[in-house]
C-alpha cells in the first residue's frame, strides 16, 4: 500500500501516512487553521468522472476556503473558470517560502500550517515535499495525487484513477457538510 510510485524512491525513516478514505483528508483539512493548495500543471491531464480534475479542485478550494497557488502555466485554466488563484508562483519558490517560519503567507496574516500539493511532476513533488519534511516543522503536507509520496505527511496510496476520483469526490462532498 505504501510503496513509492517510483520504485527506487525508497523512503527514509519518516514517511507519509496513508489517506485510506476521504474522511481522513477531510479531517486534516478541517483541522488546519491556515491551509494552502499548490496546484501543478499535471492536473490538466486528469478527468474525474467526466469532469476535469481542475473543477474538482476549484470546488475543494471554494468549499474549504483554501487559497490556491498555481504553478507553471496552470493559471489560464483557472481564469477560464472564473477562479482567481491567490498567487502564481513557481513550485520551488512557494515551497521555499513555506520553510520560512516567520513568513506570514500570501496575505501577510499568519504562517500556513497545511500545504496540499497536487499535479506536480512526481519526482519534483517528491523532492519539494522532502524539503518541507525536513525544514518546515510547522507545516504539515498532504498530496492529493493518485500516487504515493513518502515525503508528504499524508498521501493517497498508489491508486487507480477510478478509486482516486471517488476519494476526491468524497473529500469535496464531505467538506460541504
Amino acid at each position, binding site marked *: 500500500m505504501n510503496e513509492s510510485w517510483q520504485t527506487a524512491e525508497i523512503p*527514509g525513516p519518516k514517511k507519509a501516512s496513508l489517506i485510506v478514505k476521504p474522511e481522513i483528508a477531510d479531517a486534516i483539512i478541517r483541522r488546519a487553521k491556515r491551509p494552502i493548495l499548490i496546484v501543478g500543471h499535471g492536473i490538466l491531464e486528469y478527468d474525474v468522472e467526466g469532469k476535469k480534475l481542475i473543477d474538482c479542485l476549484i470546488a475543494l478550494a471554494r468549499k474549504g476556503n483554501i487559497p490556491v497557488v498555481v504553478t507553471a502555466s496552470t493559471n489560464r485554466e483557472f481564469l477560464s473558470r472564473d477562479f482567481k488563484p491567490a498567487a502564481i508562483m513557481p513550485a520551488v519558490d512557494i515551497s*521555499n517560502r513555506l520553510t520560512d517560519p516567520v513568513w506570514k503567507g500570501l496575505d501577510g496574516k499568519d504562517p500556513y500550517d497545511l500545504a496540499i500539493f497536487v499535479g506536480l511532476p512526481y519526482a519534483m513533488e517528491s523532492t519539494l515535499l522532502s524539503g518541507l519534511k525536513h525544514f518546515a516543522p510547522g507545516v504539515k503536507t498532504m498530496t492529493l495525487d493518485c500516487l504515493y509520496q513518502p515525503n508528504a505527511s499524508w498521501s493517497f496510496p498508489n491508486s487507480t484513477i477510478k478509486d482516486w476520483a471517488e476519494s476526491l469526490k468524497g473529500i469535496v462532498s464531505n467538506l460541504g457538510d
Partner: protein
Amino acid sequence: MSKNGVNIRIQDLKTDGAHLRDLNITIGSVLRDTWEEKQGPTPFPSLTTLRSWDKRLLNRYKPFYMPFCDLCCLCTYGKCDLTGKKRGACGISMPAQQSRTVLISACIGAATHTSHSRELLTYLTEKFGRDHPINFGDVGIEVEAPITRLVCGIKPTNLGDLESVLDYCESQITQLLAVTHTGQEGNNLDFESKIFHAGMIDHVGMEVADIAQISSLNFPRADPEAALVDLGLGTVDLEKPVILVIGHNVPPAASIIDYLRDNGLVSAIEVTGICCTAIDMTRYSSKAKIIGPISWQLRYIRSGVPDVIVIDEQCVRTDTLEEAALIHTPLIATSEKNCLGLVDRTEDSVEDIVEGFVSGTVTGALILDPEKVGAVAVRTAQALSPKRKKKGTIPSKEQLVEFAKKCTQCMLCRRACPNDLPLPQAIKAAAGGNLSGLDEIYDDCLGCGRCEPACAQKIPVHSLIVSAADKKTREDTYCLRTGRGPIRDVEIRKVGGPIVLGEIPGVVAFVGCANYPKGSREVAEMCMEFAKRRYIVCTSGCSAMSAGMFRNEEGKTAYEQYSGAFEAGGIVNVGSCVANSHIAGAAIKIASVFAKRPLRGNYEEIADYVYNRVGAVGVAWGAMSQKAVAIAAGFWRLGIPVVVGPHGTKYRRMLLGRADREEDWYVHDARTGDKVYVGPVPEHLFFAAETKEEAMVMIAKLTMRPNDTSKGRANKLAHYIDLHKRLVGGIPADVSLFVRTRADIPLTMKDEIERHLAGQNWTERPIPDPTLLPRMIHKRV
C-alpha cells in the same frame, strides 16, 4: 608566462661570513612573466580567498534544501538518520550534509573536466611540443584565456604554460575533496562557498582543454560561420562501414579521421559520434556525423548500424560492452578511466587486434594509444562490415506485437521510468496492433533503458519503443553548426554596450545533458523563441544537438535559420562540454575587453561587474551529471543564474532569492556610497522550472540587472511581460518590483502597466551605479 626548471651549482664561494663548497640548488620552476597588466588581488585563489564574495551571494540566495535521501551513509558510524533537526554520529546536520553532497558532486565534475584536460594536454604536448603556441590565428582574439587570466593571474602563451594551470586546478580539487571527509567542514554555507570554488576551478579546467585543442587540432577558431554538419540517425549511409565514437576526449576520434585521410578512405567509411566527442570530431572534420545526445546510445547501438564502437571517457553507458556484443560489434576502450575489464592490447600489433575482432574471438580491447586506435578501428570496420550486415536487436513490427502480448500490465516499467511515461497503456495498445502510443513515447524517452530490467516478462521495452518509431529514426536528419569555440574580442566590443545597457535583452546559454522532461524538442523551441526575440543564444554539448533536432515550418533547423555570430538573434554553438568555458569567458570579456575592468587575478571585481551588469542566464534543461553541477557552480560564482528542468530538483538544493524581502535587494551606489534598493534582479541563482513555459518566463525575468538603462529595462520587461501573458496569463504580479522609473515602462504596454502600478503603491526610485563591493565606491569619506 613560461615555466622552467633552474639549477644553480656553486663549487667554491668564499665571503667574509661563509665558505660554500659544492652547493647545488634546484628550483622546480620559475615563472617568466611577460604580461604587462598589474597583478590583481587574488591570483591562484585558495579555498577561502573568495569566501567573502561567495557569502555576499549566498546571503541573497540562500539554499533551499530538498534532501534526495534522509540518511548519510558515508562512514561506518552510519547509516545516520538526519531527518529534521537530527544530527549524524559525526555531528553533521542535514543542511551541511546536503551541501556536502553537492560539493562531492561538484568535485567529481571538476575532477572529470580537469582530468580530461590533463589527458588531452599531455597528448597534445607530446605531439606538438610544450612550445606550441596558444594561438587562434588572425581573428582578433587578444584575450584567448579569459578565465585563466582572471583566476590564475597569468597569461598562458603556449601549451607548456597550461601545465602549471592544471597543477593549480588539481591541487584545489584535492583540497576540496578533502573538505568532504568526515569531521572536516561542518557549516553549510562554507560548504556552499567551496562548491562555488569547485565550479570556478572547473571552468579553468574546461578552458585549458578547449584552448589547447583549438590551438593544436585546427578546430574552428572563433568562427561564426563554422561548418554545418550532419546530425541525426537518418544521416548515416548504411551502405558503408560505420564507426561509432562515444565520449568526450577527441584524440582517438581524430586519429580515426587521420587514418582515413592518410589512406584515401574518407568517403568510404562513416565516422559517427554520440555526446561531446561527436561535436569535437566535427570540429576536426566536418565530414564526421553526429548521431545525437547521450540518450541516443542504446537506440543507435541496438539498430546494429555501428560496425566498431570506440569509447573514450565521460557519459558513456557502462553497459556498452554488453550491448555491443549483442550486435556482434567489437568495442575499443581508449581511456585509463574507462577500461571495462578489457585486456590491454596497447602493445599488440594492429593486425593481431583486427584479426581477433574480425574472427569474433575477441569482443573488445583496451588500447591506450590513439594512433593505434585509428588504424584498428578503420581496418576492423572495413573487414567486419560485410560480415555483420548491420544486424541489430530492434524487433520487427511482428516481433514487437508478440512481445507486447506478454505484458501483464504490472506497471513496473512505468514506475521505473524517470519521466513516468505511459508505457503499460502503449504496450497494451501495441498488443492489439496499434503502435501510435509507443511511437509518441519515443519523442519523450530519455533512452535510459530502466524500463527493461524492471519488466518481469523480459520484454525489451526500450527496443519496442525504437521499433515503433522506425519511420522517425529513418527521417532523423538535421544539422548543427559545429562548435566555433570562443567569442571574438571584436564581437564583444560590438555587443558589450547593448548588453550592459540592456538593449540586447540578454544572453541565454542552453547547455548540458539530455535528461529532459519532455524530449529534445523543448530545447529547440526555447532556443528559437529567444533568438527570434533578439537575445543572444548560446548552445553547447548535448543541448547544442537538441537545439538542432527540430525543423520549423520552412523545414529549417535553428542553425540554418539563425546566424552563428555572437549578436542579437544569433544562435552560437560554442562546442562540446569544455567549450562552456567560452560562454563564461564571453561574460568576463564584456567586463574586461568592453568595460576595461582590470582582469588579472581580479575575480571579485569582475564577478561583481558581471552580476550587476551582464544579463546572462544559463539553462541546463536536462542537467543530469556531476559535471553539470560543476559547470553551474562556475556560473554561480560569477553571478550568472542557472535554470534547470524539473529533474534538477534532485541536485538537492536550489539557490533562491526572496523577492518579498526588500532588505535583501540593496546595493551600493558606486558614485555616492548610498545603499539603494534595486529590486530582485536577478531573482534566483539556481532555479528548477516545472515546465518549459515556466522556464521561458523565468529566463526573461532573470536577464534583468540593476545596471539596466531605462531603455534596456523597458526592453527586458516587454519580453518578460509578453511571455508571461502568453504562457501564464495576465500581467505578472511582481512587475512593480522591476519598474524603477516611468521610463522603464515598455511603451506598447504603458497604459496597462501604469494602471497596474497605481494599485501597487509604487513610487519611482533611483538607478544606481551598482556594486556589492564597498571597495568599489568612488566617493571617499
